[in-house]
């Protein structure tokens, strides 16, 4: 399979803080990659470099063979990636439907009816077609996150980046969001997911990587990863959370 994402010798500093230390990573098209690790290990920063929410200090990010730069990053994002955030980041001044159609209409030149049709299909998929006219504040956290996933689907990019999508949710709402993500994993979308949901990682991941202190310390299939990880710090981390 061709590589959808190639990260080469990526370094990122926040002031004096060295957050990503010479990270290299390849992600195949359609691969489901789960990234785990303690907080502050750089996992969010890593996926935020893929859509340029963070500018790499040095190194390269290539998507579909094309290097992402200061000049082309907006066009690259429009073509290749969407993101689901911990805090949902839905637009509170717009209805659910308007949240879903804004980017397709304004950025991708779709006409309104076509965009609304796609939006309704995706809302149906996450089980929220009946909430199309609601405002996000009137939905539960789990519902808001499902809307956010539908929004990411509406722009039809081949990559979806998930940044701790269930971390801000009440426990009883985590599963409904994970269910949607599991269903999504059947498709040929390249998924990168930062999460602490180990059950999800076992079920859908093609590969799991463990990050600590700005480096990738372990990388392998879920079986390898959870049964006999090579790295000592990874073992310690797993023993604490499993």
């Amino acid at each position, binding site marked *: 399979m061709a590589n959808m994402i190639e990260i080469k010798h990526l370094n990122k500093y926040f002031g004096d803080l060295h957050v990503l230390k010479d990270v290299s990573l390849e992600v195949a098209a359609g691969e489901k990659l789960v990234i785990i690790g303690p907080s502050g290990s750089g996992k969010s920063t890593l996926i935020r470099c893929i*859509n*340029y*929410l963070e500018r790499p200090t040095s190194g390269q990010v290539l998507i579909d063979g094309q290097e992402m730069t200061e000049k082309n990053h*907006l*066009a690259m*994002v*429009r073509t290749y*990636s*969407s*993101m689901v*955030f911990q*805090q*949902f*980041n*839905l*637009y*509170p*001044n717009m*209805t659910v*439907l*308007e949240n879903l*159609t*804004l*980017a397709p209409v*304004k*950025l991708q030149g779709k006409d*309104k*009816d076509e965009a*609304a*049709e796609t*939006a*309704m*299909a995706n809302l149906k998929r996450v089980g929220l*077609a009946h909430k*199309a*006219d*609601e*405002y996000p*504040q*009137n939905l539960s956290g789990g519902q808001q996150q499902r809307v956010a996933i539908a*929004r990411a689907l509406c*722009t039809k990019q081949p990559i979806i*980046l998930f940044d701790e999508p269930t971390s801000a949710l009440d426990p009883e709402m985590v599963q409904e969001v994970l269910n949607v993500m599991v269903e999504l994993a059947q498709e040929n979308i390249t998924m990168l997911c930062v999460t602490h949901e180990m059950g999800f990682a076992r079920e859908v991941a093609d590969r799991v990587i463990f990050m600590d202190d700005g480096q990738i310390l372990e990388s392998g299939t879920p079986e390898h990863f959870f049964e006999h990880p090579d790295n000592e710090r990874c073992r310690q981390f797993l023993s604490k959370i499993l």
Partner: protein
Amino acid sequence: MDLFDASRWATTLAGMGDLWGGFLFTIEVSLAGLAVALVTGTLLGVMSSTENRALRVISRVYVEFFQNTPLVVQVFLFYSGVPQIFRALGHTGTPVRVAPFVLGVVGVGLYHAAYVSEVIRTGIEAVPKGQMEGAQSQGFSRVQAYRYIILPQTFKIILPPLANQALNLIKNTSVLALVAGGDLMYNADNLVSDSGFLQGYVLCCVMYFVICFPLALLIKWLERRSKQTPKAKPTPAAGVAKEA
């Protein structure tokens, strides 16, 4: 008591023509001053929210100067300073006098621009950072994000404090009575000194109240509205797609 003396009221009411003239002038100065304050203030507020340090400093200095010196002093300064600037620029002959209208508009306009700027800045800052990130993750540029996502949210937050600035601005145009004149307070003051009756001031209060009180009600309504969670809004497009 003098306040209820019918003949004094009759004398004062006979001079109402001047008061109406001042009333109209005050409204004109307020509207033009408000336009100056909104345009200048929005510009300064956006400047203070950019990533450019120089623009932020300029905006900050402006705001601190105008907020931390009295409006009366500023207007006096314009009143006597501007003619001198013209003279220094080689404009000889008869001294240039700043027209009362211009002095009023520039005076309250620049003063309230500083407050409008702060309203705009806090309004922009009140929109969570995640909104910009959400927009950028979809491929919106910063300018597009402001236009489609951030500013519409800012607008709702800032309307009540902006209306409050408009109200203060109207009242502050009365500073003109101290220098150039022509406004409601100035004409009321003339009326009182001509007649010696304070009824002129009472009428003056009533006339300011007539403009300002509805505005105060509007502010209350806007505040209530900005706190409400919007209700579901049916869109025809959703209906069509749902049936499909």
